[in-house]
């Protein structure tokens, strides 16, 4: 909660690693988790004379995000050099897009407190990631791993369009959903695929000019983005209320300490000396490629959710739940494509499947029960071959043992619904109890329960009750057998 009388202004810069198999300017592998300095080559290491060659796949993935966020996606963009010295920056400059980025404008649409909001974007540009420096204070040395150096990134830069940390979190989540849905990023935050810097300033409500901002770096989880931003908002307000001034600076968020600390002030800020990279030509995307990329976009989560609500009459809760990931929505559509009614499929997924997967900490694409296997189960239930109770038992077995619903039914016996079989059993039961039959026919209707009980005893409870009732009524109706 922001104290009364104050307003915060928040802009986000999100670095998203693109899901390419090689780096932005060389064929060295882009792979997480390898031994240090395994994914390097002379280009990654910035050796003398080597040159960058642009990875076209990265351009395509960046464009997909741009189209999905309704940006202006440019057919011509350029790369610039951004200079600073650091051990994990091999060339002494980062190749990025400063003057002519690949996308400008656009918006991230997110729902905050049940209201749909469009947060404006400034731009999306392509750039290369840096390596990682590990300081070993105990041994007094620093080690550098260049595996991440040169990995393709897009930086998504928002306008200062957010006012609360909740909005910032909603922005991040919605953007995350889009970059994953477009297949542009794996979006794995633990692997650093999706990293956030936040620009935060505060001002008294009603003031139009912006307060002095700080930039908080390195916020790498949804959990912490809210905490980091609201802690910074409070730090700034407290500072001003105590008669102090906010200093323009870069702060580093520390997950473990749960607080940020100053990293460098404005005076220490680098002069990056941007200029067009003379080693690279402008990126030119021809009309055909542009159209191909635009038209190959999958349906995006928010659109899919709307369609589920409007065309399949799902509740907005279910629709949101089922479109949380592309795999989940694909699964759902797989079930209904097999002829299952949407509501039935949604109920089972929400009630049984997702609950079980959640308990086992599994994603839907790791589910032992495939969409078609679930559809088979739901069909057997619908046809009455399984009772609701048996259906749940069958589902458990499918999850645990990987059996199919029909196989389970075969070995555990399903409900007996075949009228011919039931009629035969009924006839036998009636024949062995002639006295009761006579009494029933004479009008002692209470004996119905007795006959049903006998049939159930005979079938060990598997006979379909409605079918048994009908068969008994037919068998006991007037006359003698």
């Amino acid at each position, binding site marked *: 909660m922001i104290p009364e009388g104050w307003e915060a202004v928040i802009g986000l810069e999100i670095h998203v690693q693109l899901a390419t198999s090689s780096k932005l300017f060389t064929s060295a592998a882009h792979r997480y988790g390898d031994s240090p300095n395994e994914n390097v080559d002379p280009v990654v*290491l910035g050796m003398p*004379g080597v*040159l960058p060659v642009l990875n076209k796949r990265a351009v395509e993935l960046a464009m997909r995000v741009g189209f999905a966020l309704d940006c202006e996606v440019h057919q011509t963009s350029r790369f610039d050099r951004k200079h600073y010295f650091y051990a994990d920056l091999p060339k002494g400059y980062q190749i990025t897009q400063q003057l002519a980025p690949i996308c400008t404008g656009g918006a991230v649409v997110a729902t905050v407190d049940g209201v749909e909001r469009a947060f404006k974007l400034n731009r999306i540009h392509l750039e290369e990631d840096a390596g990682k420096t590990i300081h070993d204070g105990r041994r007094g040395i620093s080690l550098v791993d260049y595996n991440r150096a040169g990995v393709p990134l897009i930086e998504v830069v928002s306008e200062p369009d957010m006012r609360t940390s909740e909005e910032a979190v909603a922005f991040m989540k919605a953007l995350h959903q889009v970059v994953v849905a477009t297949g542009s990023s794996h979006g794995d935050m633990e692997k650093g695929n999706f990293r956030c810097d936040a620009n935060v300033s505060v001002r008294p409500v009603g003031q139009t000019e912006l307060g002095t901002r700080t930039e908080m770096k390195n916020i790498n989880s949804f959990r912490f983005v809210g905490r980091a931003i609201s802690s910074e908002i409070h730090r700034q307000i407290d500072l001003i209320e105590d008669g102090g001034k906010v200093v323009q600076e870069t702060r580093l968020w520390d997950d473990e300490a749960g607080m940020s600390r100053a990293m460098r002030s404005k005076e220490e800020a680098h002069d990056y000396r941007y200029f067009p990279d003379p080693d690279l030509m402008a990126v030119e995307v021809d009309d055909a490629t542009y159209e191909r990329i635009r038209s190959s976009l999958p349906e995006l989560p928010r659109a899919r959710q709307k369609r589920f609500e409007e065309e399949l009459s799902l509740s907005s809760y279910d629709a949101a739940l089922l479109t949380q990931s592309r795999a989940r929505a694909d699964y759902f559509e797989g079930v209904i494509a097999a002829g299952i009614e949407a509501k039935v499929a949604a109920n089972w997924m929400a009630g049984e499947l997702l609950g079980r997967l959640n308990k086992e900490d599994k994603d839907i694409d790791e589910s032992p029960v495939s969409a078609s296997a679930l559809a088979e189960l739901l069909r057997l239930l619908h046809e009455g071959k399984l009772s609701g109770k048996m259906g749940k038992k069958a589902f458990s077995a499918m999850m645990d043992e990987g059996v199919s619903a029909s196989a389970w039914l075969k070995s555990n016996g399903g409900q007996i619904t075949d009228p011919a079989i039931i009629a035969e059993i009924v006839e036998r039961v009636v024949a062995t109890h002639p006295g009761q039959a006579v009494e029933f026919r004479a009008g002692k209707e209470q004996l119905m329960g007795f006959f049903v009980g006998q049939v159930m005893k005979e079938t060990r409870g598997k006979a379909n009750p409605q079918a048994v009732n009908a068969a008994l009524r037919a068998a006991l109706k007037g006359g003698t057998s």
Partner: protein
Amino acid sequence: MNPSWATIADLQEAFRTGKLKAIDTVQAAFDAVESDGQDLNAWTALNRDAAFEKADAIDRRRQAGDALGPLAGIPVGIKDMICTRGLKTTAASRMLENFIPPYDATVTSKLRESDALLIGKLNQDEFAFGSSNESSAFGPCKNPFDRTRVPGGSSGGSAAAVAAGHCTVSLGTDTGGSIRQPASFCGVFGLKPTYGRVSRYGVVAFASSLDQVGPLGRTVEDAARVFDVIGGHDPKDSTSLKTPFTSVLSTLNRGITGLRIGVPKEYFSEGLDPSVETSVKAALSLMERSGATLVPISLPHTRYAVATYYVLATAEASSNLGRYDGVRYGHRTPRHVDSLEDLIAQSRSEGLGDEAKRRIILGTYVLSSGYYDAYYLKAQKVRTLIKQDFEKAYAQCDIIAAATSPVSAFPLGDHLDDPLKMYLMDILTIPASLAGLPCASQACGLDPSGLPIGLQWIAPPLQEERILQTAHFFESQTDHHRHRPPGGER
């Protein structure tokens, strides 16, 4: 036949007829290099064992009747800006004194595939920063015509080694005149191709938008043979041109009938040494007498070229040299350091020479926030104007001729205390570099001290062929290319 002075065609003929073996040429090359001792100082590294091995392999392959590459058995030298796998590549800097690249430049691998014999690496100005070779961290190469004088730069070693008969041909790099000016000072032929015609992959970067690799040889034909090998598109260099590359060798004898030679008045103004002017004008009269037409032209923005060049080239250089930080390779300070910043600053202070520091400071300044528009951006605009000067001129002529350098080789140490004066001497070579045009320098006479004078040819983009035909014709009519340095008439 003395293999040290033979042309490629002569050597090939001798190999074919069995009069000579590759092993003889490599032996002659190393004899020449070693008899010169350290005096000429043209080489920064020698590739002795590998060269003899390769020569031996070539001789055996020839014996077996195997197909051989177009430069089989030809001794070549490579400027030390150009990476050679397994062989030190220093850019004549302390920073890279012990750097052995794990990769070949594209031009190096093309030379290897052509079966050329790599004799070694050639001295130069540090990171190609200079016009005299005096900024080399390993001492200046000397001019073979007068060892108290500079060989020119930055490709001084490339020109001197060819002029002194150490190797048949060499590779140099040219950013603002670094092939043409030393070719002129040493009396050899040097070609700077159109920007993008030859791959820059693996060539230590000075100014990426200007750098270009080119051949030097004692004859136009020798250089043309090397150009045929190294030219063409390279997918590893995004700035390399995709235009199909066709051999220039077969077109050398087309002659100059109807050729219109543009003579820019701005290139024949004050500062041009009278003996240079006389030789160049004599060369032009000869061409006129031989059927060419001389057309007076104007390149009005020439006077801004040096300033423009030193803004753009230093800006790019300051960026390109950022990678030499002592972290991954190259010189790292042996001193105790307290921080990464300290490590980088110390290593660079120790590893880079004065001229490199001067250019890094200049380049950093022109790119600084607040100065970028006034310097870098403005220089880019002037560069466009200079390019347009040439485009307009080529409406009236087919090729442009001028002196390569306003002076002949000057004494060692003459300009060391006045870098600006040295920069200004690049006035005749820089405009064509800024315009990315193909150009060359060939010998057109000797001055009264017996020092070579260079005639420069500048052609429209991709017209290397026209330059080579014109220069080949001039060569066929004159003997200037036959002048040997003292002791060279072996």
